[in-house]
C-alpha cells in the first residue's frame, strides 16, 4: 500500500509537471503569437500527443511564425522546408552523394535532408507537386526515411508542422488523402480581431522584440506524451468517439443526414485515435485524469475536418466540412442525454 501511495504521488507530481511545462510552452509561444489561443493550444496538444499538424490560413497570419516559436520554446532540432513547385523529394529526404574516400575510393554517402530533425516546418506544403508532398508520407507515419533501399530512422520526437494556403488559391496542389490523413489536426487560422491586430502592430513594429525562452526539451515532450496516454477514458466516453466517427460514414445507418447527402468518404480510425489522444492531453491540461465529453468535442473539429471528403454536391452547395461536423456534434447523443 505504501508503494502504491508513493506511486500515486509520483504520478501526481508527473501530472503537475505536465501541466506546468505545457502551460509554459503555450505562454512562450504566446509571446510571439498574438491571439490565436486555440491554434497555439491545439498545436502544443499535437506536439505532446506526437501528432503532425496541418495549419491552414491565408498568407501573413503567422502560421510560420507559430511553428518557429514552438521550435524556439522547445529544445528541438528545427528545420524548415519551403515547398515550391520545383521542390524534389530528395530535397526533403536527402540523397546519396558520391564521396572520395581516404583510400581514394569513391563511395556513396547518404546526405540527410531537412526532414531529419525533431520539428519540421513544411511551409506552404500544397505549393509542391504531389510527388514531393508524398516524400513526407513515410516520415510522418513511420518516423523513418527510405532512400536507395536503405532505411534511416528519424530521431524522436519527430513532428511535421505543415502550413498551407487555402486550396482555392492559385498555384496550389491539394494534398493527397493518404497524406492528409497523417496529420493529427488540421488547424484553421483566422484573421486577427481589431484588438489583436493592434497588439501585433505594437509588438512587431517597436524596437523591442519579444524573446522566446526554451522551457521544454524533446524528452519532456516524449514524457508528456507517454503520460497523457495513461489518462483514463470511460467506456461511455469512448463510445461517444465511435459514434461521432460513425456519423461521418455515408453508408452507416447511424450517419447524419448531411453526411449522407454531402460526404464522399468519412473519417478513418485515425480520426478516432487523434480525438482520444488529443482529448487526453486536454484533460491533463485541465488538471483531470479522465477524458470528458467536452474534451472529445474540442478535439472533434480539428481531428475530423481534413478527413472528411465531400462530394460534388457539397461543393455545388458551398457546404463546408465544419458545417457538417457542427451538425454531427449537435445531434450525436452522449450518455446521460
Amino acid at each position, binding site marked *: 500500500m505504501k508503494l502504491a501511495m508513493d506511486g500515486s504521488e509520483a504520478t501526481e507530481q508527473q501530472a503537475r509537471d505536465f501541466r506546468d511545462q505545457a502551460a509554459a510552452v503555450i505562454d512562450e509561444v504566446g509571446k510571439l503569437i498574438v491571439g490565436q489561443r486555440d491554434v497555439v493550444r491545439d498545436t502544443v496538444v499535437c506536439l505532446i500527443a506526437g501528432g503532425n499538424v496541418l495549419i491552414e490560413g491565408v498568407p501573413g497570419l503567422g502560421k510560420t511564425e507559430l511553428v518557429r516559436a514552438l521550435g524556439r520554446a522547445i529544445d528541438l532540432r528545427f528545420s524548415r522546408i519551403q515547398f515550391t513547385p520545383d521542390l524534389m523529394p530528395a530535397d526533403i529526404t536527402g540523397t546519396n552523394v558520391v564521396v572520395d574516400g581516404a583510400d581514394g575510393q569513391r563511395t556513396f554517402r547518404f546526405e540527410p535532408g531537412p526532414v531529419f530533425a525533431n520539428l519540421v516546418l513544411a511551409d506552404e506544403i500544397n505549393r509542391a507537386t504531389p510527388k514531393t508532398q508524398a516524400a513526407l508520407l513515410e516520415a510522418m507515419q513511420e518516423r523513418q526515411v527510405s532512400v536507395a533501399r536503405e532505411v534511416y530512422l528519424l530521431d524522436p520526437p519527430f513532428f511535421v508542422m505543415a502550413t498551407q494556403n487555402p486550396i482555392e488559391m492559385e498555384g496550389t496542389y491539394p494534398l493527397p488523402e493518404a497524406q492528409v490523413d497523417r496529420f493529427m489536426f488540421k488547424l484553421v487560422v483566422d484573421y486577427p480581431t481589431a484588438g489583436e491586430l493592434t497588439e501585433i502592430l505594437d509588438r512587431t513594429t517597436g524596437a523591442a522584440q519579444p524573446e522566446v525562452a526554451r522551457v521544454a526539451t524533446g524528452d519532456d515532450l516524449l514524457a508528456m506524451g507517454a503520460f497523457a496516454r495513461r489518462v483514463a477514458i470511460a467506456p461511455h466516453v469512448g463510445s461517444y468517439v465511435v459514434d461521432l466517427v460513425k456519423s461521418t460514414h455515408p453508408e452507416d445507418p447511424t450517419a447524419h443526414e448531411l453526411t449522407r447527402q454531402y460526404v464522399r468518404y468519412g473519417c478513418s480510425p485515425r480520426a478516432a485515435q487523434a480525438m482520444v489522444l488529443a482529448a487526453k492531453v486536454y484533460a491533463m491540461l485541465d488538471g483531470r485524469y479522465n477524458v470528458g465529453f467536452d474534451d472529445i468535442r474540442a478535439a472533434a473539429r480539428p481531428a475530423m475536418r481534413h478527413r472528411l471528403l465531400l462530394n460534388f454536391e457539397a461543393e455545388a452547395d458551398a457546404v463546408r466540412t465544419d458545417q457538417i461536423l457542427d451538425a454531427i456534434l449537435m445531434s450525436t447523443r452522449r*450518455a446521460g442525454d
Partner: protein
Amino acid sequence: MGIELTPRIARGIAWPAFRGTAYGPDALEQRLLPLARRWQRYRTLQEAPRVLTVGVGLALVLVIAMAVAGLPRVMVALAASVAAVPLVVLAARALVAPPPLAAALAYDRRMAMFERLSTAVAGSRADSQVRELQRRDALQALAGVDAASAFPYRAPRGDLGVLALAAVVLAAAVLAATTDVLPRVGGGATTSALAESLGAEADGATPALADPAVLAQIDQIRAAMAELERQRDPEAAPAALAAEAAGEALRRTAEGRRLGRALDSGDFQAAAGEARELGEQISGMNSTRMDELADGLREAAERAEGLDEGLADQLRAAADALEGGQLADARSALEQLAQEIETVGSTVQADSGLEAQLDQLARQLAEAEAAAADGLPGTEGDSPGDAAAAAAAAGATEGSAEGSVGSQGGGDSVASGQALEGTLETLAPEQRLNVDGQLEIVEIAPTENGSELIERPVLELGPGGSSGYEASAGRRGYAVGRPDVARNVPLDMLPMMDRYFAAP
C-alpha cells in the same frame, strides 16, 4: 486531501440501504447514493406535472365517456380516480435509487464535472495509479457538490399550470357528471341525465335537482299512470261517442226522446230503462208512431255505425223489428238494446273512472316534478300513496280476468300488498281485498286517531263515489266501493265481501 479512500460504511447508512441498489459500500458510492436519490426525486418532480396531466386527461376522457354512456354516477366518480394512478407510480419511482452510472452522469452534466464521477463509477483501462488519482479527483469534486442547489425540488411552473388547469377541468367534469351543481356535460347529456333521474322522457320539463325520495315518488306515479293507461279500454271512447250520436238522433223523435236524452247525457242506466220501457209501450203504439220510432232508431244506428258496431247493430235490429210489425220481436230487440246500452255504459263508466284517476295522477306528477325542480322534498307522502292506490284501483277495475295488481296502502299507513295462502274466509278483520279475486290483499294498518281516517277513493273493492256501497274496512280503515263491484268480483265471493264490508 482529507478524503477517506478506504472503503467503509458511513454512519447512518446501513447495509440494507445498499441491498436494493447497485451501490457498493466504498466512499465514492456512499457519497453518491444520497445524491442519486435526490436526483431521482428531482427528475420525478420534473416529470410529475406532465405525467399527472396525462393521467388527469385520461381520467377526464373516461369520466366524459362514462357520463355520456349514462353509467351510474358512482362509477363515473370512480373513473376520476384514474388520475391518481400516475401519482402512485411517481411516488414509487421517487423512492427507488437510480443506477449509479446514471446518477453520476447526471451530476457530471449538471455540475460541469467533465465526467469525473461517471469515469470513476464506470471504470477505465487506465493503470491503477491513474485510476486512483482519478477516483480521488472524483471524490474531491463530489465533496463540493451541493445537491440542493444542483437539483432543487421545484417543478416546472408551466407544467404545473397546465396540470392545475387540467385538474380544474376534471373536477368540473366530475361535478357535472355526478351532481347537478353544474350543468351536465353537453345539452343533450343534461336532458338525458335528468330524464334518467326522473325516469321520464327528455322533454325538458324535469327538475335540476334529483332528491331520491322525490324521484321514487315520481317513478311510482309514472308506473301507476302507465298501468292505468294499459288498462283503459280503447273502445270506451268510441262507444261513448256512438251513444251520444245515437241519443241525438233519437231525441228528434217523439217516442224515443227520453231514450235519446238519457243516452246523450251519458246516463246509460236510465237509457237502458227507457229502452225496456219502450218495449213495454209498443203494444199501445199505432203504426205511425212505430214507424217514427223505427226511423229514429235506424238513424241512430247509422250515426253509431263505425263507432260502436254492437250498439249500431242492436239499434238497427230494433228498427227492423219495429218496421216488421211483430211486437214480440220488437220487444225482444228493445230488451237486447237495453242490455247493450248497459254494456256500453259499463265500459264507458269504467274508462271514465280510469281517466279521472289519470287526471289526478297527472296533477300529482306535475307537483312532484315541480318539487324536484325546486329541490324540495316530496309532498307529505299522500301522493305516492295515492299513486299506489290508483295502481291498485287499476287492478280492481281490470276485472277478475286480468289478474292481481300489487298495491300499497295510503301514505299514512304501512300497508303493503302481499299474496295470501289459504282462502278468503281466513282473512282477518283488519285486512281487506285488494283486487279482483286473485287472493291478493292489502293490509291496512290502523291509525292511532280515528279522525285520521282517510278516504281511499279508488281503492280496491267497493263502490265508487260517495253514494252507494260505503263500507268500512277493519276497525279504522275506510273504503269506498264502486257500483260495478259485482262485475269485478266473482260471484261466489260476494257473501264473503258482504261480511267483510259490514260494519264491525
